[in-house]
């Protein structure tokens, strides 16, 4: 089961700066959405609003699933943000513990999640013993272990080397295909958003508006081979062109792509 996301007339400001003035956005259940935008435009604030960590000043943020249940939401931060005093396994059981899950059940669910991210051997290690990529895998396992209806990721792979990043992108895409939770993935990389997402949203500078909202033309199953195909490169080019013309039509004042993405 996956969550439907709906933002209606959302306004949010921090002190003097207006992040969102009047933002409307709908995300269908089970879709994989990438959110891009210049740094500081409010991408992270959008995620925090969806997570319920911030409330809008005006308007509504709805995250709903069918039935009575309240939706389970997971968040993957820019850095892995593991608790250093907990082992890998204990880090992954944490969300289950907080939800009141029985300990033995939580352990077996966490073990399963860690096996899925390829860390079945590292259960008793501590975060300081792991590489950056492994830490991020633990962080992914911690997010997946609750079987979330909505998975929010805030530039999770930005600090990793290319090889690790590509591998984690493939894994994330595979988890999504298997579980079909709703995914909102914030990134500042156009290539990452083209590779991962089925829908790409580009925000403007603040107060952030939606500059571009497009559907990907790539096939659902994506593996490394895709990265060198002309289809993928064409997709990136289309994304760039559409963005360029969106910027053009929006502001006659002459905004440029390299200004939006310094």
């Amino acid at each position, binding site marked *: 089961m996956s969550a439907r996301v709906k933002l209606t007339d959302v306004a949010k400001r921090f002190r003097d700066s207006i992040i969102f003035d009047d933002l409307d956005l709908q995300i269908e259940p089970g879709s994989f959405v990438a959110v891009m935008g210049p740094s500081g435009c409010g991408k992270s604030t959008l995620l925090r609003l969806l997570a319920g960590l911030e409330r809008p000043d005006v308007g509504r943020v709805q995250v709903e699933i069918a039935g009575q249940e309240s939706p389970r939401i997971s*968040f993957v931060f820019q850095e892995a943000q593991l608790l250093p*005093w907990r082992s890998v396994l204990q880090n992954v059981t944490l969300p289950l513990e907080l939800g009141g899950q029985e300990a033995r059940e939580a352990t077996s669910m966490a073990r399963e999640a860690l096996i899925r991210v390829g860390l079945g051997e590292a259960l008793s290690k501590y975060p300081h013993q792991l590489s950056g990529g492994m830490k991020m895998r633990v962080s992914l396992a911690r997010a997946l272990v609750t079987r979330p209806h909505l998975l929010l990721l805030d530039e999770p792979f930005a600090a990793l080397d290319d090889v690790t990043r590509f591998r984690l992108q493939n894994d994330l895409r595979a988890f999504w295909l298997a579980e079909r939770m709703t995914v909102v993935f914030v990134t500042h990389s156009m290539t990452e958003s083209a590779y991962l997402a089925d829908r790409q949203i580009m925000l403007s500078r603040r107060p952030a508006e939606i500059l571009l909202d497009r559907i990907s033309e790539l096939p659902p199953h994506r593996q490394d081979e895709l990265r060198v195909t002309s289809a993928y490169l064409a997709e990136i080019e289309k994304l760039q062109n559409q963005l360029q013309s969106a910027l053009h039509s929006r502001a006659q004042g002459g905004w440029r792509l390299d200004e939006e993405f310094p």
Partner: protein
Amino acid sequence: MRKDSSTTSLPDSHKGVQTRLQTLAKVLGPLLIVGVGLEVAVRAEWISPFVLPRPTDVLKSLVNDRVELLDGLHATAMASSLALGVSASAAMVMALIMSQSRWARQALLPYAVFFQTVPIIALAPMLVIWFGFGFPTALASAVVASFFPVLASALAGLDSADSAWVDLFRLHRASAWQELVKLRLPAALPYVFAGLRVSAGLAVIGCIVGEFIGGGGLGSVIDAARTQQKLDKVFAAVFLSSALGFFMIGVVDQLAKWSLSPWHVSARDQDA
């Protein structure tokens, strides 16, 4: 560096003994040099024996006055270790209360700072009036002296949890209790041990000050020997009280190592 990465072929236990002996030699070396130097200087009467005793006389006093000294050491050790337990527990409780609200912090912090800034030597006569001679005054004085470092470090530690961790706990709807027990307290632990280390030394000092005024323990041994101009005994007692402080700090360090070694950088093997 982990122990097993060493390239020597000695078994682990031998290496451990060897390292410890080396450390001991490093620590005792300067003491030995200064001791021999002082011995020569006092014997040659470059320094008057009324200013500094001969180190050999201090050693003799450690042997000859051992009954009195060990009684004093025992009393001081009991009072200062109990005081450290009391002040650390009280400081933890107070830190927990103060971490719960800005209001509590603002209301209580000035009183906590009082413990840090009050001149314990001025307070000690009052402590005698309030608590009576001997052990109770030594205990109270040691508690006052050792209270603040644990409080200040625990407060800093309870606030040290990363904001992303707090978000994570809120996202998964953690209760305030879960946030305290599973996040803030473990995050505070390295800080608390750093504070405890400072407090351990201060507890011994506070205790000696209390004993100076209220009697009992090494403090009154020092005071009595001083009035009798038995400098060797004064120094023997000072040496023992300082050794007691060392020992208490060592115990705190060992506790820190046991509880933090799996994860915290301060407790990992640094040599090997």
